[in-house]
């Protein structure tokens, strides 16, 4: 019997005879992946303002960057994750950091855009200029790696680009591999931009990249169809020729589709469904503890009862870590209690607290003898996990005389609420793309008071340690600073870490080549089927 696959194999074996014919055929079901997800992209331009989480997937698969993270095996198996510190060239053929460590020169590969135009240093500069100037998330993310001004990007010649560093920042190079600094066909974009120098409207609805996939059709809120770019040479040619990504809002429906074998791969199911799928054994579930991600209970250090550090510590001695891990995350996470007295150079890591009602009671008796009433806030969008979590916390705090009122607010409200920084207790999950402890604390506990410093924690001593760690080249000094600032927050507890959640993906057993990316969107380029 001649199947589609043997036909291709024959084509590969006798290129003169059969490749042309094989290439011309329409992709079959065996070469088509059906992905089901909660919601799809709201734009095709990840640099644009208001781009939603799934737009990262478009940037990842349809555009190229100068660099990409090197895949390394997931310790528990099932595929690959990435190494933050080992980078590979994507559009860059080679790169060289200057001896003074203050610039880096990139040599470009001979790559072409989907339009057929060659990728030049001018396009790279235009795209990076755009990322640092367009505002919103893109600009914030670029700045996180000290990429702030267009003057930093210098075209040396058609195939050579130099990036001048503002300061030595170990996050500059990894930040070139995240989904924001992707390279756009600048001539095509400007031509269609209708006077807008950054072609915002046009790029929102059109892909002008050089990536491994093109968008064949995009119906917002319904489906996105990708087709392989057969001319892609920035890596091994992807195996899948066509990807259909359907937006299916109901997780129960997504689970049913997976169990029946009608969908190939599903992201974002509730932890309970993942656990059930693993137990049933019909589909494969690959889990990666989200790097630099943790569920934390933020306790306001500026207003309300928790300005007293003893009460924050009392909470840390009372949170039922193990129960939460089982009842709200269904075991899909890593416990953050019972850690060593002296922290290690890692984040997140277990704090040295565990459930000890006696200690908690003593601390409350000393700081607030009569007990008190307070509120606990969480994002309704996370309710599947956060609701049982907050109920368990409420139950655990009641015997201490702390009465907790649970408040569940929808996503758009939640942002407004945490920006106010007046809520005494907030349950939130924050995950940083760049996996460095100082990066996490920079967002959540640093004196710059970003929106994610929910506890409104201000401590010049911590700021000094975090800043020093961020900009040092000295490994020993870095390790020392990390241990110091982690010890500090273990004592001070602006946030009680509860569990590091697992990022799970369910797929049919025939699907291989799973690649976890920090942006947590599917990378079709490595996936295989059959």
């Amino acid at each position, binding site marked *: 019997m001649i199947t589609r696959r043997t036909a291709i194999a024959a084509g590969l074996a006798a290129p003169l005879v059969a490749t042309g014919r094989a290439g011309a055929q329409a992709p079959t*079901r065996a070469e*088509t992946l*059906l992905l*089901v997800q909660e*919601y799809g*992209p*709201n*734009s095709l331009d990840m640099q644009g*303002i*208001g*781009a*939603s989480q799934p737009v990262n997937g478009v940037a990842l698969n349809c555009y190229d960057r100068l660099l990409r993270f090197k895949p390394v095996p997931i310790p528990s198996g099932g595929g690959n994750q990435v190494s933050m510190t080992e980078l590979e060239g994507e559009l860059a053929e080679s790169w060289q950091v200057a001896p003074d460590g203050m610039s880096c020169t990139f040599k470009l590969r001979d790559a072409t855009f989907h339009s057929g135009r060659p990728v030049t240093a001018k396009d790279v500069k235009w795209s990076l200029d755009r990322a640092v100037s367009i*505002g*919103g*998330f893109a*600009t*914030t*993310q670029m700045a*996180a790696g000290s990429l702030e001004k267009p003057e930093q990007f210098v075209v040396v010649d058609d195939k050579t680009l130099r990036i001048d560093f503002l300061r030595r920042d170990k996050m500059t190079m990894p930040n070139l591999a995240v989904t924001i600094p992707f390279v756009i066909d600048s001539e095509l974009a400007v031509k269609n931009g209708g006077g807008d120098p950054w072609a915002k409207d046009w790029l*929102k*609805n059109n892909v002008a990249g050089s990536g491994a996939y093109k968008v064949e059709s995009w*119906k*917002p*809120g*319904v*489906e996105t169809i990708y087709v392989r770019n057969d001319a892609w040479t920035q890596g091994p040619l992807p195996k899948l020729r066509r990807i*259909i990504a*359907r*937006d*299916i*809002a*109901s997780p*129960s*429906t997504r689970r*049913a*589709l997976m*169990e*029946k074998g*009608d*969908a190939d791969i599903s992201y974002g199911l509730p932890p309970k469904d993942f656990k059930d799928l693993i137990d049933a054994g019909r589909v494969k579930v690959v889990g990666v503890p989200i790097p630099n991600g943790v569920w934390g209970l933020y306790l306001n250090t500026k207003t309300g009862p928790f300005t007293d550090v003893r009460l924050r510590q009392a909470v840390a001695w009372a949170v039922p870590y193990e129960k939460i891990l089982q009842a709200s995350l269904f075991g899909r996470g890593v416990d953050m209690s019972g850690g060593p007295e002296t922290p290690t150079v890692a984040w997140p890591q277990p704090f040295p607290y565990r459930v000890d009602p006696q200690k908690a009671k003593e601390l409350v008796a000393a700081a607030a003898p009569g007990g008190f009433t307070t509120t606990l806030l969480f994002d*309704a*969008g996370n309710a599947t996990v956060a609701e049982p979590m907050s109920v368990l916390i409420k139950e655990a705090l009641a015997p201490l005389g702390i009465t907790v009122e649970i408040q569940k607010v*929808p*996503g*758009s*409200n939640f*942002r*407004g609420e945490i*920006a106010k920084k007046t809520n005494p207790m907030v349950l939130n999950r*924050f995950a*940083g793309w760049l996996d460095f402890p100082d990066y996490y604390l920079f*967002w959540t506990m640093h004196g710059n008071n*970003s*929106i*994610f410093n929910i506890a409104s924690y201000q401590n010049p001593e911590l700021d000094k340690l975090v800043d020093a760690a961020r900009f040092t080249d000295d490994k020993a000094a870095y390790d020392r600073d990390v241990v110091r600032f982690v010890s500090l927050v273990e004592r001070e507890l602006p946030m009680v870490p509860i569990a590091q959640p697992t990022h799970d993906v369910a797929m049919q057993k025939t699907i291989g080549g799973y690649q976890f990316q920090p942006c947590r969107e599917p990378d079709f380029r490595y996936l295989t089927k059959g």
Partner: protein
Amino acid sequence: MLRILVDRLLTTLPALAGVVVVCFLLTRVLPGDTAAYFAGPAATPQAIEQIRKELGLDRPVPEQFGRYVTELARGDLGQSLTTGQPVLADLKSRLPASAELTLFGLVLALVVALPLGILAAVKQGSLADHLCRIVATAGVSLPVFFTGLLLVYLFYFVLGWSPAPLGRLDSFASAPPTLTGFYLLDSLAAGEVETFRSALAQIALPGLTLAIFALAPIARITRASMLAVLGADFVRTARAAGLSGRKVVITYAFRNAVLPVVTTLGMVFSFLLGANVLVEKVFAWPGVGSYAVEALIASDYAPVQGFVLAMAILYIVLNLLIDLAYGLIDPRVGSAAA
């Protein structure tokens, strides 16, 4: 007739204006910060401020309203931030999906509920009457998302009779050329039997879910109104004159009993549009209901306003049609209105 139509349309204008104002104000009063939401994770206060400015949300409310009305007059309903598309385009592509599903469910409900209601009234206290009562009670007491999930579990997951609940078409089929936006009609018009079959298979379960919900009020009101008419003098006269039972029930009684049913139908249709929201979620149906809810959660004003406006217009048209239908069914109503 034409004059009634024009008169009726004119009286709806103040209602529409009211909808525009109230809906605009309501969306602004809602707590929630659009700019903060769309600034995404890790946004700085400056980034949020910049987005607020770009969306025009930093201006005073009267100015925002003025701009909204001006754009509305030009037929521009604004941009959705959740889908990134103009609201008008979104509604155009999604409204037919919701309408097709709702009408399908309604027709399905009618086909079952009318005979059931008539039978229950004619044979009071019989098995059919009890069945009618049970169906009606079950229909109103089961929440639609539950019925939906139950049907998916039974017919798709366990029995495998129904195709995957993936929306309006199988993922490997393509949509028929747009004529009405109703896939069932469009595929037939284009002569694509395969597409018709796929669309019918996809709509069957969500349609059934809605039908179960709609059955109850239609069956109950048919029964009640038939009972009233069957007890009337003219029915007794007809029977005494020796007309066949069939002729008495269908031609005389039912024709007279149908007015309250039509009124209920209008109400049921509007309930169904509401119930749609949950059914659309379960069956991944790309309709307006799920679209509006998602926009509401994100404090995305433009689609919410567009949705409410579209619904208001739909109800007005629906009520108008029902009024006109009254005149056709019972000529006395038409002459009284004129």
